[in-house]
């Protein structure tokens, strides 16, 4: 049964709707990311769950209890902020102890619990440091320990990593996920970083203009985006605009090319404009004329970007059709692909790619 339920929550600021009728549920122990660009309402929803904002309509239910009108002091939720929000006048240990002191936990139990949590986040050595004596990553670990100390029912994180450097960000996201799974705590995680959301989540809610555009597992969101917004916001996506030649034959025109696709949308007719959605890594270099399941294009390379393990290629389709982004293995050049600006290369992609009606 769902542990955290969000029912038709709506919140309006002045004339602007920040959150529009959002509903989803989270099972106990589930990690749900609220992903979206800034201003898309994800933080507002988190603050409504925390009790810092009141919804105009809708309900928040935790473990069967309706908390919509409960003040934040009584909700027993742990919150981690982008700005860390550690109390500057207290040591790391006193920060972690804060939530236990407000609950009048006996002092010896507090000591033990603080030690336990600081060691969980790997900072037992720095218990007596003040926030300004800690690095950003360390401060956020303390903030996490502080939020977890009173055994909250739900853990809420508001872009906890976005103020940190790339390397620390990647390390800490692994650790947050590990701790979350160890404790089995139900978690809402707000982020604008699609890689973070994909890497950490059990499920993702993609926000856009206050609406939940898509809710699903990382794989569902990545492989079967249901809107143009989701397709481009989560991962890179080539969106090629084509015209349907024959719906029955499954052929479309891209510039001078005729391509074959397996699944045209039901509601298009011949002559309609459609979009092919192809992930850059789904486009292969080279061409086997005998493989009839592949579409073939020629691409002039404009730019080759070395990305360490991979190469990012930007090119222009020969014969019209626009630009194409490719993500190919590092050793493509060793295999004789001749990837350099100005070169012309053969690429292929499967016929079973996603096709949608072109948005006007």
């Amino acid at each position: 049964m769902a542990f955290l339920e969000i029912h038709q929550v709506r919140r309006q600021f002045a004339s602007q709707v920040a959150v529009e009728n959002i509903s989803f549920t989270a099972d106990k122990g589930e990690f749900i990311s609220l992903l979206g660009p800034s201003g898309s309402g994800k933080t507002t929803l988190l603050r409504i769950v925390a009790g810092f904002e009141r919804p105009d309509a809708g309900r928040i239910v935790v473990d069967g209890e309706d908390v919509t009108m409960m003040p934040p002091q009584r909700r027993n939720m742990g919150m981690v902020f982008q700005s860390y929000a550690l109390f500057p006048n207290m040591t790391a240990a006193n920060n972690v102890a804060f939530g236990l002191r407000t609950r009048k936990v006996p002092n010896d139990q507090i000591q033990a619990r603080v030690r336990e949590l600081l060691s969980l986040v790997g900072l037992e050595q720095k218990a007596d440091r003040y926030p300004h004596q800690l690095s950003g990553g360390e401060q956020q670990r303390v903030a996490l320990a502080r939020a977890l100390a009173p055994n909250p029912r739900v853990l809420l994180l508001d872009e906890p990593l976005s103020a940190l450097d790339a390397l620390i960000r990647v390390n800490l996201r692994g650790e947050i996920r590990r701790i979350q799974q160890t404790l089995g705590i139900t978690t809402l995680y707000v982020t604008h970083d699609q890689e973070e959301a994909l890497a950490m989540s059990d499920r993702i809610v993609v926000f856009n203009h206050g609406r939940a555009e898509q809710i699903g597992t990382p794989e569902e969101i990545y492989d079967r985006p249901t809107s143009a917004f989701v397709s481009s916001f989560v991962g890179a996506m080539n969106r090629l605009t084509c015209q349907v030649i024959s719906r029955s034959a499954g052929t479309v025109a891209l510039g001078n090319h005729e391509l074959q696709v397996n699944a045209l949308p039901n509601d298009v007719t011949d002559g309609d404009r459609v979009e092919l959605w192809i992930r850059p890594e789904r486009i292969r270099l080279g061409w086997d004329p005998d493989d009839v399941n592949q579409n073939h294009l020629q691409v002039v390379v404009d730019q080759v970007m070395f990305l360490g393990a991979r190469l990012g290629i930007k090119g222009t389709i020969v014969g019209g059709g626009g630009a194409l982004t490719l993500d190919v293995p590092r050793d493509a050049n060793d295999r004789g692909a001749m990837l350099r600006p100005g070169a012309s290369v053969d690429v292929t992609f499967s016929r079973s790619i996603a096709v949608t009606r072109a948005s006007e």
Partner: protein
Amino acid sequence: MKRLSVGSWLVGIVALLYFIVPLVATAQFSFQEGPGQPFWAAYTSILESAQFWQSLRLSLGMALAAVVIGLIVVVPAAYWAYLRVPQLKPWIEFVSILPFVVPPIVLVLGLVRLYASGFGPLSARVTMLMGAYGVVSLPYMFRSIDTGLRSMNVKALTEAALGMGASWTRIMFQVVLPNIRQSLLGGAFLTFALIMGEYAISSMLGFNTFGVYMLLTGQTQAQGAAALAIIAFILVWFFVAIMQWVSRNSITTIGGSR
């Protein structure tokens, strides 16, 4: 860190001289007594005057009252504005500079008119003086506290504390006050200095405050006034030191540590 150029030292020195020279000149003048008198004569005659002690007591009381009023009224108001109604801030800032804009005389005249009609205890002259001082010191108090709150990320810290079940009292005493201590001290200090030197309002209301006493002395005996000015200067710094010491010992204890 950059290396200090000669120019920057120059500016610092000129600026300090600008203030220190008058101070030194005043001090020097206060020691120039007539023949046959010890050089500290101006000081002893002041310290032996009953009027001096009376006016000092009055001004100290008023300064303390203004600081306390500031703490009790301005801190919660500013905190609450920061937390809940940030869009009110321009208004509050405007109100906080009004004492500069509406000349204090207008204020006092208005107060006299208003309270003369009799509002019970409010029409007491002491209450009027205290009210006027409260208004005059408001901008200093507000600006200091505003600076403190701005540098402490009020909203996130408050929400962090709320999320952990803290009461408002706990938040005020363990989170807000300890983190704006420096600014509070700054505001209290300015208020203190302002009221110790004030004489326009009090003379219009017929009070013999320290400022009025200083002015009267200045009009009658030159050396005495200089000595008094030096005493005032020392007094202000002395009380500041006491406040600093008290606050370090009290708020720190309330706030847990650091």
